[in-house]
């Protein structure tokens, strides 16, 4: 087997992005200050955007950067600034009383999620019960090239088969806009001004 420089580079960039994503996510969980959590969250989002580029979904990567990094992260930082807090004093715990149970539950859930990936090693033989042995169904991996011009095709798809969800999404965003302003307003000041 000859060394394939392309494959090595791709594997390396996958590992880099994976470490960025997971490291950022762990930083979100472990950071004491919520502000630091928000910054780690941005790191994690950027890692996911890199993975999208590696998966040749460049448009989605751009959307990820614009919506998650620029929009949601800034929203979170604004919310942090708007809620001045006594939060990060040393004697106030950052995580709640159920964190150990949460850790146990999450680890169990992770193992359950992993089981299908290792399904070939865990095939259960039901033949004593008179059942057929379970055969894991593999996904049919396609080596075809992705769509040539995904942005144009996506525009056509959004105006064609997906037009109803697209319209519903527009209504949802409008409702969210109005609702967020209504919920987030200062009731005291609203009475003063009226």
């Amino acid at each position, binding site marked *: 087997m000859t060394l394939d420089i392309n494959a090595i580079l791709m594997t390396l960039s996958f590992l880099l992005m*994976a470490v960025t994503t997971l490291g950022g996510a762990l930083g*979100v*969980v472990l950071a004491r200050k919520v502000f630091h959590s928000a910054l780690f969250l941005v790191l994690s989002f950027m890692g996911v955007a890199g993975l999208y580029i590696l*998966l040749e979904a460049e448009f989605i990567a751009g959307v990820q950067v614009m919506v998650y990094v620029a929009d949601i992260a800034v929203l979170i930082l604004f919310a942090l600034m708007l809620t001045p807090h006594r939060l990060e004093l040393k004697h106030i715990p950052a995580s709640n009383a159920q964190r150990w149970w949460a850790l146990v539950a*999450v680890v169990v*859930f992770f193992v359950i999620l992993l089981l299908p990936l290792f399904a070939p090693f865990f095939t259960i033989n039901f033949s004593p019960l008179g059942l057929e042995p379970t055969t894991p169904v593999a996904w049919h991996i396609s080596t075809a090239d992705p769509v040539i011009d995904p942005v144009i095709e996506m525009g056509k798809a*959004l105006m064609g088969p997906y037009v109803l*969800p697209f319209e519903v999404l527009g209504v949802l965003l409008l409702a969210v806009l109005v609702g967020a302003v209504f919920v987030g307003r200062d009731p005291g000041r609203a009475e003063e001004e009226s």
Partner: protein
Amino acid sequence: MTTSVTAIPLAWYLLLAAALFCVGIYAALSRRNAIGILMGVELMLNAANLNLIAFWRYVTPQQLTGQVFVLFIIAVAAAEAAVGLALIISLYRQRETIFADEVDLLQG
């Protein structure tokens, strides 16, 4: 010609997404700060999106269903974050706290 499909197995992406999802769950379950809980939810949504894009690239790269789906999820996630943070700010105005375990009006 080596592509990322032949270089990296699909299972790696699934593994990464599973780990990301679990970290998100842990953040949502263990953080006291309500904004931290929202961050956990965002991490979980990202993990789901990563799975969808990976399956799109590896299984049905000729159709755009996966990408369109992710686009919708991102838009809904942005809406969810906006409403969630508005609720948190409103909560802070009324209760002077954004610790989720101190908001126990419904506790008997």
